[in-house]
Structure formats: C-alpha cells, structure tokens
C-alpha cells in the first residue's frame, strides 16, 4: 500500500503539471486519507468512492491517497492521524467507533483531539432475524426478551457498533435482555443467523438488502423515517421506541489544522456528494446523502457522545 501512495504521488504530480499555474495554494500535494480499517470494508469503499469522484471531476486539484492503517478497532489509524502534522494533508475517515472507543476506555484520546471536517452519508441499522423466526415484529421480540431474559441470542462484534445497537434496542424496553455472543460483522452475522447459531443481529440496511434473498427478515429500521427502498419496514419510532442508531462517515483533521483548509476540504466533499457517481453509489448502498459541514458535525459529535457513552460503558461491563 506504500506503493499505492507512491503511485498516487506520481499521478498527482502529473495532474498538477497538466493543470499549470492556475492551482490554488492548497492543496499543493496529494492529501492522505487514513482509513483505520482494512481494504475492502465499508469505510474503505466510501473513501475510494470519494477518491474516484474527486479525481474524475477534478474538484481538488490534487488527488486523494488512501492509506489503510487497520487494527485495534480503528485506534491505530486514528492515533496516526492525531499525531500527524496539522497541515490539512492528512485526514481521518472514521465513524462512531471513535466515540465508543473513547467512552469504553479503549483509546486514551477521542473526538476532541481532532478538528471535525465533514460528515458524509448516513445509514441506519436494522434489527434482523430469519424469516422463520417466531417474532412478528420488534415489540414481540422485545416482549419475548423480557419474558425469557438472556435466552435470545444476539450476534455481534462485542464492543463494536452492532453490539451497541443491540444494547440500545434492549434498553428501549426495560427488563428485556439479549444474550450477546461474539460473531463479527455483517457477513459473519448473516452466516450465524442462517446457520441457526444466533437469532438476532443488527446489520446495515444495505446488508439487509443483499441478504434478504438469503432468508433474512428485518423487524425495524432504527430511526424516525422509513426508507424509500423498503417502504414496508416500520421505523423504531413508529413502533413506539425512541431509537436512532445511524452510522455516519466522519472526516477529521488533526487538532490545529487551519480553518480555511478544513473549509476547502469540506467544500470539495460536499461537491463530490452531488456528483452523479456518488449519488448512484449512495443509492445502491442505501446510504442517505446526508452532508454536515465542520460546525454541524462538531455539534453532532457532542450530542452523539452523550448518547453513546453510557451504552459503550455498558458494552464494556457485559
């Protein structure tokens, strides 16, 4: 992946040379996007989508270079960006794991150590069971989880978002209790559901749409508004639970990065969001085309931290 950056640099130099002197002062060289997860994952895919859109439409005047720094739930890559020079040439793309990692004490730093740049895309989780499961809907599932606490098996990646979503859902109906089991991410949970090893999981809407043909049934969409692609799926709020569990992709810069550079990057990202390519991919991945600028994101982070902190601590106690 080092070679990838070298390649990107060479490509960037070419692009810059082709453009001549009309380039603004920033950026003068490729911008490094640290994806703190492996190549091929959701976050990586999103980063590469923006990379392509920005390059194709020549929005930035310099390419984005994606550097995967996976490990320890994203904290290795996040730490790398935190300790990078605050010049706008190194950015982090991460999600709520940054907040939960701090709250659970897995990282000795957190969102306050970064400058928020932008939030792009929004995708809420669904409560998923198999088609032949005995529960007609989320209320029945939660009532059963209350009648038989610690009996219904919920697959998750313990400490990660799909675990917290489960904790939040059981918390919405006091007395309900799932038995959480370490399974992994979306695909692993599909396999465990299908094999009858687990009974409930929380997966993204896009995962649900791809696994639906394999016999997965969704009970609720964890937000306030129905999704146009699955109009029959009730939302948690309609069912009377005040639940909102959505994943946004957040872009961060190291603390102290000049505001004008942050604004420039945010503007480019916002523009890329409007490209046909990004719109199409977002539609296919069932992501809402949400965009938040630096200030809106800062406010959201504070709000989300207050929401996720108690759940993250609960996840840790388990």
């Amino acid at each position, binding site marked *: 992946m080092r070679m990838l950056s070298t390649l990107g640099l060479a490509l960037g130099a070419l692009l810059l040379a082709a453009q001549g002197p009309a380039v603004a002062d920033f950026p003068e060289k490729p911008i490094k996007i640290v994806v703190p997860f492996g*190549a091929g994952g959701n976050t990586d895919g999103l980063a590469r989508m923006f990379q392509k859109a920005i390059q194709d439409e020549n929005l930035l005047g310099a390419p984005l270079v994606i550097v995967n*720094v996976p*490990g*320890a739930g994203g904290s290795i890559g996040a730490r*790398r960006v935190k300790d990078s020079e605050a010049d706008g040439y190194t950015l982090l793309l991460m999600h709520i794991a940054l907040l939960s990692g701090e709250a659970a004490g897995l990282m000795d730093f957190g969102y306050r150590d970064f400058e928020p740049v932008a939030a792009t895309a929004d995708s809420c989780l669904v409560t998923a069971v198999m088609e032949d499961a005995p529960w007609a809907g989320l209320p029945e599932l939660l009532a059963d989880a209350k009648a038989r606490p610690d009996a219904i098996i919920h697959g998750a990646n313990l400490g990660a978002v799909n675990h917290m979503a489960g904790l939040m859902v059981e918390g919405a109906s006091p007395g309900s209790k799932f038995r959480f089991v370490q399974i992994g991410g979306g695909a692993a949970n599909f*396999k465990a559901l299908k094999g009858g090893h687990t009974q409930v999981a929380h997966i993204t809407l896009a995962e649900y749409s791809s696994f639906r043909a394999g016999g997965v049934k969704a009970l609720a969409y964890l937000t306030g508004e129905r999704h146009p692609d699955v109009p029959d799926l009730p939302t948690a709020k309609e069912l009377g639970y005040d639940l909102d569990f959505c994943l946004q992709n957040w872009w961060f810069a190291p603390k102290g990065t000049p505001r004008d550079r942050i604004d420039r990057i945010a503007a480019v990202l916002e523009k890329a969001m409007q490209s046909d390519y990004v719109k199409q991919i977002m539609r296919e991945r069932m992501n809402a085309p949400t965009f938040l600028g630096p200030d809106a994101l800062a406010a959201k982070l504070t709000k989300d931290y207050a929401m996720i902190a108690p759940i993250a601590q609960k996840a840790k106690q388990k």
Partner: protein
Amino acid sequence: MTDLADGFLYTFGAYPLFLITLGTVLGITVGAIPGLTGAMLIALTLPFTFYMPPVEGICLLVSMYVGAISGGLITATLLRMPGTPASVMTTFDGYPMARSGRPGRALGLGITASFVGGLISWVFLATLSQPLSDFAVRFGPFEYFTLVLMALVLIASVTQGSMIKGLLSGFLGMLVAMPGVDPSAGDLRLTFGYHELDAGLNLLPVLIGVFAVGQVISDIVGIEERAEAVTMDRRGIFLSVRDWMRHGLNMVRSSLIGTWVGILPGVGANIGSIIAYSGAKTFSKHPERFGTGSEEGIIASESANNATVGGALIPLIAMGIPGSVIDAILLGALLIHSIQPGPLLFVNNPEVVYTMIATALVANVIMFAVMLGAVGQVARLRSVPRAFLMPIILVFCVIGSYALGNRMFDVWVMLFFGVVGYFLERSRVPLGPFVIGLVLAPIAEESLRSGLMLSAGSYAPLVTRPISAVFLALSVVLLVWPIWRHYRQHRGARRGSH
C-alpha cells in the same frame, strides 16, 4: 450451464485472456517474493479496476489471487523462505529436496500439486457452490473450535525430534498470538500500555521474520561455509504415471481438505496446508521422511493451499460472505462497481459470477503452463550467490511488512522475529509447531469463547453437536496415534538392540 459457457467464451477473448495472463504472472511474481502477498497486489490494483468494466476487473483480480498462492512455492522450495504464509509447510520438504540436488523435481511436484488442487476445488466451485455454502453455515463456533483443535493436536505429529521442543515451539507460537485486542471481548490485553501493540503482532511480519529473515541471518553467519556445489537435475519435473498412482490419493485428499477449509470463512489458506500436511504425514507409510524432503509433504501442502482459492470463492458468490482476506477485497471491488454480492448475485449479475468461475480455471491453467515453463530458469535462483540475493530479499521483506498496515512497527516486529527464528533454529527447536500455534490459537480461542457465550458456559455442545463430536473424536485419534507409533518404534528399536 450455458452461462458458464458464456463465461469461458468471454475469458477466451484476446483482451480478457491478456488480463488473466498478466494477473497470473504478476501474482506468481509477488507470491514468490517473501514479504509481498497477493492481498497487497490486489489492494494496489483495486484503484485501476475502478476504470475497467466489472468483468475485466474480475479477470485481473481473480487471476492475481490464483497466481499469488502458487508463486509462494518457488522461494519456499529454493531458498527455504515461504513466498506467502500459505507456503510455510512447503519449506519443510521442498527445501531439503532442492538442496539434495533435485530442485527441478521439488518445483515440478509443487507446481503439479498446485494445479491439481486448483482444479479439484474449481469443480466444486462450478458445480456445488450453493449446497456447499448452505452446509458451511452449519459450522458454528463449536465446529470451528473442534476443527482447529484437530489441527492443533497435529503439532504432535508434525514435530520431529524432541517432543518437548516441539510443544515448546507450539506454545511459543500461541503466546505470540495473544497480545492485542481480546478477540471476544474487545478489550486490550498484554499490550503493557504500549499502543503500537494494540493491534497485536501481525501474522505476516512474524512469519516473514522467523522464516525469511531468520534464514538471512543464518546465511550471513555461515556465509563462508556455504560453498555449496549447485547441481541441477531437470529429471522428474513432469510427473510419470507411477508418480500419479503413488501420489494421487494424497493429492485428492489434500485438495478436498483445502477446498473445505477455504469454504469456511475466516480459516485461511495456511491452515488448509497445515491440516493437509499433517494429515498426509499421519496416513503416510513413511512419516519419518517428512521434513527431510518427502514428496508427499510437498504435494499435500501445495495442493491444499491452492484448493483454498476455489473454496473461498464459494461462499463469496453463493452468499456474499468473503472466505478470505483477498475475497473481502474482491467484494469491495464489486461494491465499487455497484454490484451487490449476496444470494442474488447469480440472478442480478450472472456475467460477473460466471466470469469469476471461468477465470479461476483459466488462470489455473495459465499458472501451470507458465510455472512449468519457467522451472529451468527459476531453479537457477539457487546458483545465484546468496550475498547478492539476501539484501534484495531483505528489502522486499521490509517493504512487505511496512505495506501491510503502513506502519514501521511491523518492520521492527519482523526483524525481531528474524532473530528469534535464528536462535530457535540453532537450538534445533522445530519451526512447524510454532507456525501452527501462531496461526491456530487465535481462531481456537475466539471460536471456543464464542461457543461458550452461545451455550451460557456449557461445554456440552462439543460432544452433543454431531459435527463437533466427530472432530473431537478425530482429534483424540490423531493425538494418540503418533504417540503410540512412536512408542512402538522405540520399543522395536530397543528390542532389536538387545
């Protein structure tokens, strides 16, 4: 079936065929270089495929996958450095055979076994992917645990010489796998507050360290002694009818093991070759030859690791579940092209599925032809003075370790384990059990702990679940058999001396 024919027809087009050949050759090259892996090559190639039609991208990426897993045997055989982690087991017999003046034979066996492994797993991929992946989902944590336990027990049968040293080596491997994020609680453990260790010790740098760098060190230390006459015997590159008769069963068995291990997500090619190798040794008439240049050992390891490729593609196309790290990247590539993998892939994008299946076979044939054709040239690698070769290899090891996570830490880990590997070797501690412990312990731990969460702490499912019970029984047999045989041989020997 007509769809599959269309898939083949497409891959025989001039441009797709060019892409497949390019991908296979690049894959073999990267696979042969210690430190660089197929996953890295594919991740690097990913951005280029954004600008290709999806089927062309698939041709390129899948052929790289096939090539990379095959290339590893070259350096494993000639230099005792596994080009990819999946070829570790090949070093144990490939190198001794090459050293005894038969590098051509060793390579020929490895290449043919790779081809057969790829072929057999391909048949399952093309015909039975749906039922096989339906069956594979029935493997839950307890089944994974007992499967891995079975392989872990095989440490005993892979060990040569001192059993104590073998167990020590296996234990050391397990210990190395422990630090980092606790796989089933998400907490950090054994990191001693040192954040670089938060992600644990990565498999790749540790393996490259122990095998490649350790070898470099011992070459440097003993560089004057190494005035080894290079003999090159081209005989035996192609397998004779007698060879086929003798090795056919082993080849089929190892390929089936590899295919099945490939189908199980998260288990991996190196485990396929470990199980097949240990199995071949257990069932062999000449287990004592393993580790000294056994033909059976090379065949087991190489047919199994290639078979995992076809196996791992099975859950990917049938259910959208990636069977290996490389498959996860392939899946990412599909998503970028707005192709949704999953049970509907066959319905929505049959051209992608059938191109993938056709490419897997075509790339395997090209791999076989290219590698056999190049055996003569490649085997000369052994006559290159080590003083020239070692620095180059070391450079690639550093690049590869760094590229894994773009971290210098991994490079230090690799160098440190180079020293560890050198001293293990000097103390005559076998490296096989180390690898087995290192690779299997994390899966054993995670699956057992997940299983215990499922059963609320009860161990009973280990014996009440049928598949798990079978594996458990096999584990006991595999544990007792070599010890019993060892004991009988010793008694026989003692009697003879009286």
